[in-house]
């Protein structure tokens, strides 16, 4: 009996050099791929596990305000983490920008390398954007169309994805000929053509991460945010097409 107990305790001590915990992370859909890569490297390095959920920033904002069990929030904007901090759902001093997102116009069938001309010609049936009310990349796309003075003209052609991931999939299945997605989503994609609109046409997509009140005492959550600030995570984000703050 005694021996078995010693063995079990010894085994635990060997397997987990430090007490591994689990952090639940709400991840804006545009960060899906890099976040998976970062979480895997994070686990290998620290032993902590980051369990990722993907959705639109607006959806997570509404859920977190209803005490969703997330420890960390990687938003696609700065406004929602800030609002959560002001409303008492996040730890204010933990907020920092982890990436600056780039909008890209992408098509599998049309040559959109001169995107502005393509948009002005309006020679397409459906333009996919993310829901501007819930997804910052959707808001940025709408801003860009307004800057070009095309919002009214193109409105009947716009279809909205609930997240930037669904928007990508609308274009990927060719149901929409073209769409505004996040550059990070095209990191592993060679197909189709793309146009990187100049930054002056839309506001900077500053993406903030924040520690949520739920996770304030979770060691894994704090470790994940630290890891996100570190060189390994930054390399992954840069490789994915983000500009680093």
């Amino acid at each position, binding site marked *: 009996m005694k021996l078995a107990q010693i063995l079990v305790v010894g085994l635990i001590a060997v397997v987990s050099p430090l007490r591994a915990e689990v952090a639940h992370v709400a991840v804006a859909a545009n960060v899906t791929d890099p976040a998976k890569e970062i979480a895997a490297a994070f686990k290998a390095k620290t032993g902590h596990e980051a369990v990722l959920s993907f959705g*639109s920033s*607006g*959806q997570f*904002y*509404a859920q977190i*305000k209803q005490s969703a069990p997330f420890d960390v929030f990687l938003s696609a904007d700065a406004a929602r983490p800030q609002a959560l901090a002001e409303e008492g759902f996040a730890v204010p001093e933990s907020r920092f920008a982890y990436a600056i997102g780039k909008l890209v116009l992408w098509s599998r069938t049309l040559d959109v390398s001169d995107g502005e001309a393509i948009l002005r010609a309006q020679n397409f*049936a*459906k333009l*996919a954007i993310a*829901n501007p*009310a*819930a997804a910052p990349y959707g808001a940025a796309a709408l801003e860009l169309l307004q800057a070009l003075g095309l919002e009214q003209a193109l409105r009947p052609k*716009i*279809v*909205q*994805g*609930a997240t930037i991931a*669904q928007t990508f*999939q*609308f274009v990927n*299945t*060719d*149901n*929409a*000929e073209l769409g505004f997605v996040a550059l990070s989503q095209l990191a592993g994609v060679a197909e189709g053509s793309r146009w990187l609109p100049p930054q002056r046409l839309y506001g900077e997509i500053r993406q903030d991460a924040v520690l949520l009140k739920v996770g304030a005492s979770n060691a894994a959550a704090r470790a994940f945010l630290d890891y996100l600030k570190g060189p390994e995570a930054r390399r992954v984000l840069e490789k994915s097409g983000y500009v680093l703050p």
Partner: protein
Amino acid sequence: MSSLDGAGDDIGQAIRLTLALASLTTVILLLLGTPLAWWLSRSRRWWKEMIATALAMPLVLPPTVLGFYLLLALGPQGPGGALASLWGARTLAFSFPGLVIGSVLYSAPFVVQPIRNAFDAIGERPLEVAATLRASPWRAFWTVAAPLARAGFLTGAILGFAHTVGEFGVVLMIGGNIPGKTKVLSVAIFDYVETSQWGAAHLLAGGMVVFSFCVILATTLIEKRMGRA
């Protein structure tokens, strides 16, 4: 962020669109579903239950399965794209006709099953009697079978309509959230919740609760009153 300003038009549009979608779907399902239910009830072919099973599958399948296949089928590479090209469109996704196709498939079991059950319950006897009185099969159907199965038709119509109103996953996946075209009630509620417009969300969600209560109560009462006639 929870005021109703500007949401009024949006809500009205979503309600009108939902009612149009549910009505059209119900009418189509009654037209297609009645001969199908009759055949399922009367046929002696061994494979008829295969058809019945295929038809009932939306009861079990997650809407995302239907949504996924529909997105491919309605798209430019699928039959939907070929159909859409007849009027110069590229895809049936993101369109009202696309939603109707999705809803017809998704709500079919709710219409066909009650009608088939009603036909089954009639049995052979009344139709044999009609035949000995020299009624043609066509006439026997309209004067004997259809009136006897009226509770089944009513239940099927109500459930088909209500289930289409309650549809969400399929529409979210193939709709594209276009106001006035594909932004139905359930999607509008999702949208309001996602964007923290809870006043509007409450209004629609509360309305749906009342609606569902009335629908289920109505079907129960109909089955009670007419089912035993």
